[in-house]
């Protein structure tokens, strides 16, 4: 079960955050800073899974952007690890060579993509074509208007 999904850059600024379990707004920032601190402190040779309090963090770094997923311990770490990559591939396909700016300025779309893929803390869709289908329809509609 996925607890939260974070996109944070190296400076510690949160680009996207999505919680699948209720966390108080005030505690979120605190949690995010702690999470990114523990991720930044690790080198490349170290394992991409961190045991953090009573749950686990799985992170992956893409250039200056970290994607961190918090899961509880029933989840398969490797599956999540690959899922992050899958997510990035989808973004890549949609934005064609995605960058941090794309995410900043199209946050709504990134959210739509993420919602297609993860729902209530479960991975629900991994098929790239299907994830993008609703988004493409939306784009078409806005163009026609």
């Amino acid at each position, binding site marked *: 079960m996925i607890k939260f999904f974070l996109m944070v850059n190296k400076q510690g600024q949160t680009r996207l955050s999505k919680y699948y379990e209720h966390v108080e707004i005030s505690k979120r920032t605190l949690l995010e800073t702690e999470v990114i601190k523990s991720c930044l402190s690790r080198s490349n*040779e170290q394992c991409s899974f961190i045991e953090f309090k009573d749950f686990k963090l799985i992170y992956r770094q893409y250039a200056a952007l970290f994607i961190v997923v918090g899961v509880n311990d029933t989840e398969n770490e490797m599956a999540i690890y690959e899922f992050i990559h899958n997510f990035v591939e989808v973004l890549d396909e949609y934005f064609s060579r995605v960058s941090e700016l794309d995410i900043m300025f199209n946050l709504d779309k990134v959210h739509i993509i993420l919602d297609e893929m993860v729902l209530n803390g479960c991975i629900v869709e991994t098929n790239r074509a299907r994830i993008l289908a609703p988004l493409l329809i939306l784009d078409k509609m806005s163009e026609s208007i």
Partner: protein
Amino acid sequence: MALTVVSQIFPREMIPAVLPLIEDKLQHSKEIIRRKAVLALYKFHLIAPNQVQHIHIKFRKALCDRDVGVMAASLHIYFRMIKENSSGYKDLTGSFVTILKQVVGGKLPVDFNYHSVPAPWLQIQLLRILGLLGKDDQRTSELMYDVLDESLRRAELNHNVTYGNICTWFKIQKVQKAILFECVHTVYSIYPKSELLEKAAKCIGKFVLSPKINLKYLGLKALTYVIQQDPTLALQHQMTIIECLDHPDPIIKRETLELLYRITNAQNITVIVQKMLEYLQQSKEEYIIVNLVGKIAELAEKYAPDNAWFIQTMNAVFSVGGDVMHPDIPNNFLRLLAEGFDDETEDQQLRLYAVQSYLTLLDAENVFYPQKFLQVMSWVLGEYAYLLDKETPEEVITKLYKLLTSDLVSSETKAWLLAAVTKLTPRAHSSNVVERLIQEFTVSLDTCMRQHAFELKHLRENVELMKSLLPVDKSCEDLVVDTSLSFLDGFVAEELSQGAAPYKPHHQRQEEKLSQEKVLNFEPYGLSFSSSGFTGRQSPAGISLGSDVSGNSAETALKETNSLKLDGIKKLWGKEGYLPKKEGKAGDETEAPPVPQESIIMESVDQTIVKKDQSQVLTQSKEEKEKQLLASSLFVGLGSESTINLLGKADTVSHKFRRKSKVKETKSGETTSTQNMPCSYFSSSSDVTYEDDYYLDTLQDRGDKELNKFSLSSELLDSESLTELPSAEKLSSCTESTPSLFTDNMEGLHTPSTVASVANEISLASSLLEETSEHMHSDLVEVCDNETISVSSYKIWKDDCLMVTWSVSSKSGLELKSANLEISPTENFKITEQPGCCLPVIETESIKTFQYSVQMEKPFTEGNLSGFINYQMMDTHSVQLEFSVNLSLLDFIRPLKISTENFGSLWLSFANDVKQNVKMSESQAALPSALKTLQQKLRLHVVEIIGNEGLLACQLLPSIPCLVHFRVHGDVLALWFRSSCSTLPDYLLYQCQKVMEES
């Protein structure tokens, strides 16, 4: 798009409104809409499982959908449902296996592939479901062997084939590895099959040896999981594990330690604990420390090789773990020291070593120890400093005094320290330090400390008393305590004469409160008059709580002596000020002389008086608990000696206890009724004997035990001794219960184990007596058994709680040496033990009864109460047997008897409501019959019926009311629920639907 929103943010209350719409969408032609609909339903299932229970068939349809996405979405629902209840979905195993086969075999459309692996996450999800289904179930597991083998093979094959293509290799390998990992997990969680295990073990080997760190982590994780089943696997990877221990990455290290923790035994404990401590010293995060400290302490207690090592390890644990660690750790440690092992000299050595090591630790200057560690030290020093030869108590006291005056010590710890000093004082011949200490602390601002100091002062004035109060090394001896607190009677009388209100038990006060609240509801403006009378009543409660119990016990005191063995280990009485409590109590209750002295203290120290009383009240409730714990064992011991007199006595004792426990919970009226019961039984005893003979004739071939019992009780009748009353009650209990059990007995005849089973049932039934005469109860259901014992349980629906009784009986009629029942804690229930109902009538050696009252913490439809029984037969070692009992919401529903006006006002005050239409079957499409079903099956109280509408009321224990308004239109029953609890209406609605469908 709307469906996505639905599945993300959706209030539970709106479900009935949109549910039909979404159900329609399940048939939509577009796959994406069907998929979303399923996901929305999944969300509903998450937040309110009961409301979607009727559409389970549609989930099945979704599972067989021609589109993969829809099927995958339905898997989430199934995963959740299977997790909750795996046995209900065993029949689906076949379909899951087929799906997995198709997925693994690459039958899916190509766009589902992720780097040429077919739908990896889908595979993982399926494997997880299979793992859950196959757990401990050989037949289901057999279905899976093939497909697991296949996916293991594929996973490895894939990674070999694509080895050439270096670009994608890493990706594939990783995803594939994830699948492999899940495979291994599944293989090990299902019923084992050697071939598969071998393959899985090989995979783990590959994982662990992998140079990639993430895989190594996974490998270790898998190994940790696997090692519980097969420790030999660890041997193969010994070297790798050792390497991992010195790995630079702390996460890997941590995982390795976790692994080591699982394989610890008496031989390797020293090394492993050392490694753990090393890691502990490096880590800073609080969570890790707490976790690891707990593990070390557990291991050290289990496998400690020798005393010195044990003490040193625990010292390290205490000083590192400090104040964040779990409070159980120091408590367990102290208990271990106090209770000791079998060997007395060993104990002494251990204690001596502990004392010595603490003294050296305290000698070190400028070292700061955590508070908990200091508390442990002070307790040990206080108790066992007498073992020292060289150092006199004075020196120890001086050291403790130094700590006491230090600023770094918290007031809680100071209380511990002072207690230790008090314990040491009788042996210190003359000590100026103590004098100084008393002087200093009798003027302390901290009332607690001040009280302790005063106690110490008064005790010092009376050396003899002090010695008897604080004996050497008696921490786990039994204390004789006057549980009734009868010494307070005078005080109570005095207070009463001065105009204090008499004590009212808790429930009574609550009832009054409730009734007054109701008054408030009717007349919102009558606020002032009700509250004033109310507070007046509540204020004296603090003082008189203890005294009431004493008054009550004074009644029964005629019958038996007030001696009760109490477990004297002090830490059981809470952390703070355990000693003062002991002192207070012991001082009050052992002999007459201390009483006046105590009262002097009470009067002289005005501030402490309230506190004192409160603490006594506290102790009282704790005593109550301990008593309950002890009572069951006491009864068994008494009942085993089957002489007439003892039996009678035992009965009185049990009687008393039952009454006492009731004082807290039920009305006092009930107690008097139980008192009256024996008399009435006695008057009808002539009939009883007549019946008795009749049964004797019919049951003749059932074994001598019964015979004995019956004749025994008739003897009792004749003898007209003092024990008449209880025995008459007992006798009538037998006769009363026998008719109902008679049919059972007849059936029992056909089975070989008649003697035992008959005896069992009779005794069970007799223990039922008191409850059944007043309350409804369920039949005896066997919950689990093995070749030697069987465990059965029944529920008693009392007015104020649900009682669940388990009885353990040995089939062979052999003696059950000791039996212990433990209920695993669940979040939904609050469980309290009710020992009073174990009637030591017959054959108590082979039967033990445990009674628990269960309260619901939060509403739910069905819960499971599970636990296990430890028992020991005559000459075997102890065996553990697991069991579980299903409890449904209905077990906690009681009728709420209110008037229509009350109903009206309550109805308006409740915010949570749920409306639903329920179809009725032909047979009962009329108001009366529907009403009858609801009344009988759900235990609802019918408030009023007006035309085709009706009002019902019920309450969920302890006291959550729920009101129902219903109306009949043709064959549709419109139900409208309202309650103060948000979830209750849903659950009740579900129960109603079920009931209506069933009938």
